[in-house]
């Protein structure tokens, strides 16, 4: 489904990703872990198409197509979804309007019929239940004044409405209380199916207890330095990153 080959990317003048290789097949859940500043969000943003990052080398093939060649909205149309580490506040645009516009943008681009206001309300009520959010959020400006946890649940709400095939969750678990964590994990699991894939960026094993990964990758200084199964996450939880850092340092000398 997704194949990242030797991806180098960065911001003006500074390379952040120094050659990422990663293959994700349909039905798989991949976790990406790694210390602060190792490039996890950069990878996620590059996959979603943020203009601030430029790709200097390598390629990303998504469902047989060159992902890097698509505009961010086209990527969404093709089923790519990024749950932002820092969801953006958009004053003056209410959540209901935003969600319906996004859904209809996808549907229009896919030659499907638009959803009218009434059908949308039925649909959204269903999805709100999944993330246990109150309907009153729909009337509020997107993310404006939302608490940290509300923002993260709102990301999962968007995912529920847009039904992506490849979901990239960037620290969707950070700042969540125990209930919210359960809600988010449950949301992700409910939306999961064999034709879909999920990449979860996280610092904590506790999320991976609920969303069980098939693969765990460790990022360090813009590279994936170690990959393994779910036991790798447990090991990291126990031992921290130092042993990987040391190992990696000796290897690269």
């Amino acid at each position, binding site marked *: 489904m997704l194949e990242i080959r030797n991806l180098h990317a960065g911001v003006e003048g500074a390379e952040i990703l120094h050659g990422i290789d990663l293959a994700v097949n349909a039905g798989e859940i991949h976790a990406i872990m790694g210390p602060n500043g190792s490039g996890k969000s950069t990878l996620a943003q590059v996959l*979603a*198409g*943020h*203009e*601030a990052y430029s790709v200097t080398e390598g390629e990303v093939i998504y469902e047989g197509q060159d992902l890097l060649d698509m*505009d*961010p*909205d086209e*990527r*969404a*149309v093709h089923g790519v*979804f*990024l749950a*932002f580490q820092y*969801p*953006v*506040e*958009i*004053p*003056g*645009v209410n959540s209901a309007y*935003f969600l319906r*516009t*996004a*859904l209809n*943008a*996808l549907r229009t*681009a896919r030659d499907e019929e638009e959803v009218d206001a009434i059908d949308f309300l039925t649909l959204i009520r269903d999805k709100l239940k999944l993330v246990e959010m109150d309907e009153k959020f729909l009337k509020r*400006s*997107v993310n404006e004044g939302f608490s940290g946890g509300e923002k993260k649940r709102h990301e999962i709400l*968007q995912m529920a409405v*847009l039904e992506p095939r490849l979901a990239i969750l960037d620290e969707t678990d950070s700042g969540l209380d125990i209930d919210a964590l359960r809600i988010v994990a449950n949301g992700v699991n409910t939306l999961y199916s064999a034709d879909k894939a999920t990449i979860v960026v996280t610092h904590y094993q506790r999320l991976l207890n609920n969303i069980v990964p098939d693969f765990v990758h460790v990022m360090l200084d813009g590279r994936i330095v170690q990959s393994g199964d779910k036991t790798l996450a447990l090991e990291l939880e126990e031992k921290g990153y130092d042993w990987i850092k040391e190992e990696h340092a000796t290897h690269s000398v």
Partner: protein
Amino acid sequence: MTGSKKNTRHTASNHTSWVQKFESGLNGQSLRALRQRAIADFDRLGYPTTADEAWKSVNPSALIRTDFEPAAPASLADAELEPFTYPDLQGIHLVFVNGHYAPEHTSDIPEGINIANLADVYDQPLVKAHLGKLAQTTDLAFTALNTAFMRDGVFIHVQPNVAVETPVHILFITTASEIPTISHPRNLIIADENSQLSLVETYAGTGTETYFTNAVTEIIARDNASVDCIRLELQGTAGLHVANFQAQLGRNSRMTFHDFTLGGAFVRNDVNAYMRGEGSEATVNGFYALEGSQHVDNYTLLEHAEPHCPSHELYKGILGGSSRAIFRGKIHVHQKAQHTDAYQQNENILLSDNARVNTKPQLEIYADEVKCSHGATIGQLDENALFYLQARGIPKAEAKRILLRAFADDIIGRVTLAPVRSHLSDLIDTRLEHIDAKDTA
């Protein structure tokens, strides 16, 4: 000064006789003293130059060409007015074409409100007592010029304790003309004690040629009166527009003013809310959306002369092309105006690298128990918000439109008159699409 020498109409030595000649064509000379004083002020002030503080960043040369002719009357069919009216507005309509009152378009006027063409009521004691009192000619050259040459415009008197349910819409329209024309619309509005009025002023032009509209509106809201004003400026692409809006608020009165500037090559708005009665409240909001080489100045003065007056001011602008905007917001709190609560904000979005905004708050505070806040922002469209919308599948052009609309809605949404709000909303949508298409082209 530019312009040909042989055209002597506006040279200083000739002004007085020109006013006399102008006046002899009017019915009545009751305003002689006012006109003479105004033209003397104009002679002293002269046309503004870039040396004047208020005109420093502007090249006023387009405004001071001397060959503007007084605009001739013209008759317009209802269909020609349609683009400048509000489709669902059930209002009292008055139309002025090229500065001349066009009575054929006037709709029925309900009880409790006096409405007349100003030129027909110069002799009324209320007019004599108030005309020119707020819009002083001593330091504004164009107001002096308007006062010397004013003729038609609207006079409104809402009688005490009358709430006029029907909004009054005044349309000033200038038709296409090969010779540059000038008109001096002049309005005087008196909302008497405990009365209520809703007023809409529209200034528009149909041609692409240069013309000059030099308007002055004076509004007096007496004790406990409530006045809501909306002004829409839709002048033609080469139109020059100078407008002076002066409001005085009595005890416990309230006034709202919402100003939308979309048209014109050069626009200069002076807006002054003079809170002269204790407990009065002024709201002055503005929105401008500019493209090409449009230039718009908003000079506002919120004058707190009495205690316990709140004022709210929010101006927002979107600029494309090589357009320019200046916002100068002055808050003047007199020594006795304790417990003043004044809020001022100016926000701008630049859509192109060549657009410029100059924003300048000016606070003069002489009282000590005052709450006063102000702020200004100038920036581009939020890249991260744009990306967020795009990442959800919304194409870039639409994402931009959504963000710009949200920015504008902050002002549009404050217009309470629904038919005007929805029409403004459509106009602004069209304008935003146009600006953006030009800047991304």
